[in-house]
């Protein structure tokens, strides 16, 4: 196994894990299927792009703007759409399907607003792209930065859900919603927090993606699909699972493309996606998530 490919796999995998983390958090706490997740990533990417091209600000500084912006979008969507909708029984009865349609509408809106404002063209910028030797592999510096940050956030997330009170409260809501409410965990606040956290991480992921790849208003959907593959691999609602799933997909994709051809990349991702959905149709939610 070449270190070159392994590092490429780790870089891709850690970003996938990061994107999937937020998606899973939102599903876990509210059972909302956020198919607009990739668009949040796209927004983060645009913040970084405009930061460096208009203000000559490093993407790492732009991240400080992208994260709160993404979180604010999450809060806006929660307050504007879901807080009220989630009180209606009719909506809750088919919450997964309904939320999927709603987020689909939101993603179409975000894509087209961005395309209207900034043209549908692909854009890119150069940032730290000199190549260095790193444990026997030749890698551009920006990929190492991406790996370091996303790796740190993933480790931080694991610690957050293990150690902090808020993290434990969120996990409690994911595992036993009614019981969590009974012991005094404020559901509505946890939901809002989870949505904002999930969006914030997606915004950060967008900044990272833009460092190494071209961006466009329609870059989000493939990312959403990838994130779903990861989440389904790792188990919906299982936060640690999505980290493992992300790395797994990164390895699968990088080595798969290396063994075949880049034009097979999309076929491969969708094939894995479909295979996982077909082979574990009922068991995807993890062991036992009662249907309520």
């Amino acid at each position, binding site marked *: 196994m070449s270190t070159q490919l392994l590092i490429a796999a780790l870089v891709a995998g850690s970003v996938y894990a990061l994107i999937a983390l937020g998606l899973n958090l939102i599903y876990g706490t509210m059972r909302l299927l956020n198919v607009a997740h990739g668009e949040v990533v796209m927004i983060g990417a645009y913040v970084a792009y405009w930061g460096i091209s208009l203000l000559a600000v490093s993407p790492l500084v732009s991240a400080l703007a992208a994260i709160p912006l993404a979180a604010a979008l999450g809060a806006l969507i929660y307050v504007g759409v879901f807080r009220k909708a989630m009180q209606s029984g009719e909506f809750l009865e088919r919450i997964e*399907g309904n939320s999927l349609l*709603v987020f689909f509408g939101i993603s*179409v809106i975000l894509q087209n607003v961005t395309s209207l404002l900034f043209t549908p063209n692909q854009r890119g910028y150069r940032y730290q792209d000199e190549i260095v030797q790193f444990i026997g592999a030749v890698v551009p510096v920006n990929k190492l930065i991406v790996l370091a940050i996303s790796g740190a956030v993933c480790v931080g997330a694991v610690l957050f859900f293990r150690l902090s009170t808020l993290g434990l409260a969120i996990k409690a809501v994911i595992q036993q919603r009614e019981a969590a409410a009974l012991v005094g965990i404020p559901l509505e606040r946890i939901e809002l927090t989870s949505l904002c956290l999930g969006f914030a991480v997606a915004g950060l992921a967008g900044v990272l993606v833009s460092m190494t790849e071209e961006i466009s208003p329609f870059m989000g959907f493939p990312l959403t*699909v990838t994130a779903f593959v990861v989440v389904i691999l790792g188990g919906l609602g299982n936060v640690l699972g999505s980290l493992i799933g992300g790395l797994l997909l990164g390895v699968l994709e990088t080595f798969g493309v290396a063994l075949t051809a880049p034009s097979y990349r999309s*076929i491969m991702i969708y094939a894995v*996606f479909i295979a996982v959905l077909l082979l574990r149709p009922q068991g*995807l939610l993890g062991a036992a998530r009662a249907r309520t």
Partner: protein
Amino acid sequence: MTGRVARVAGFVTAAAFLAIALPSAANDYFVGVGFTLLVWIALTESWIVISGMTGYISLGHVVFVGIGAYVAATTWSMLPIWAILPLAGLAAAVLATLVGYPCLRVRGPYFVILTFGLSELVKYIVINIESALTVSGRVLFGAPAVGTLYLIALGLGWASVMIALAVRESRFGAGLRAIRDNEEAAETIGIATGRFKAAAFVLSSIIPGMTGALMIMRSTYFTPLEIFNPQTSVLIVTMAVIGGSDRPLGPLLGVAFLVLLQEALWSNLPQLYMIVVGALLVAVVVWLPGGIYGRLQHLIAAAPR
């Protein structure tokens, strides 16, 4: 109930007969708008046979459009139109048969994202086949005039409404609705849920396949990226949902509304059109479950007499 449906069917058929006159009465622009309207009616009414009836929402119906169009594009110089159209429908039906049974075991939101993934997978496979054949887009020479295509679209649109009405009134349709309301219970009382769902899926794929063939005869150009565009699937779902996907007449309202909006906005502001589509989807799902048609019925039922 059956009398009412017979009236609706008669009304739709009469309207279709009147619509035959459009090509001789109006200029090509209006015939073109009529064609677009009928194409979307055919797609949306076919979609509700599986998704409106069973609640298994297909977000990948463009795959049937694409496969039909692909068959038409590859056989264009070899076969006459009257052979191409059924062949396109057949190809879609074969695809639906192959994928229907395994896919329909997957429920709820997983089915939705699965159908989306499936249509993207087929798209990328076709793209790779075409690039392996070193074909970049196929041009269809000598396609029929818009008036002829309009009449075929009228036939497909009419047939799709009739099928939707017939399915809704049949025992088959009752079985499908039972699956939507409670699949376990439906199975317990002896409905062969697997076969019912698969049959509805295949039935809902044939007309989209033929419509796909018709669509590239109109544009006279085939590229996989364009014809397999997931936006088509989104528009089908949106038209059905905002109209009210539960009743065959609901989607007609949604289609008419969005096609007219498209005519007004598409050429100048395609992004604005999609923004409105997205906003409508959000608004209807959150505030108007049942769609426009369901709302109207509700209002009529509640009105004091």
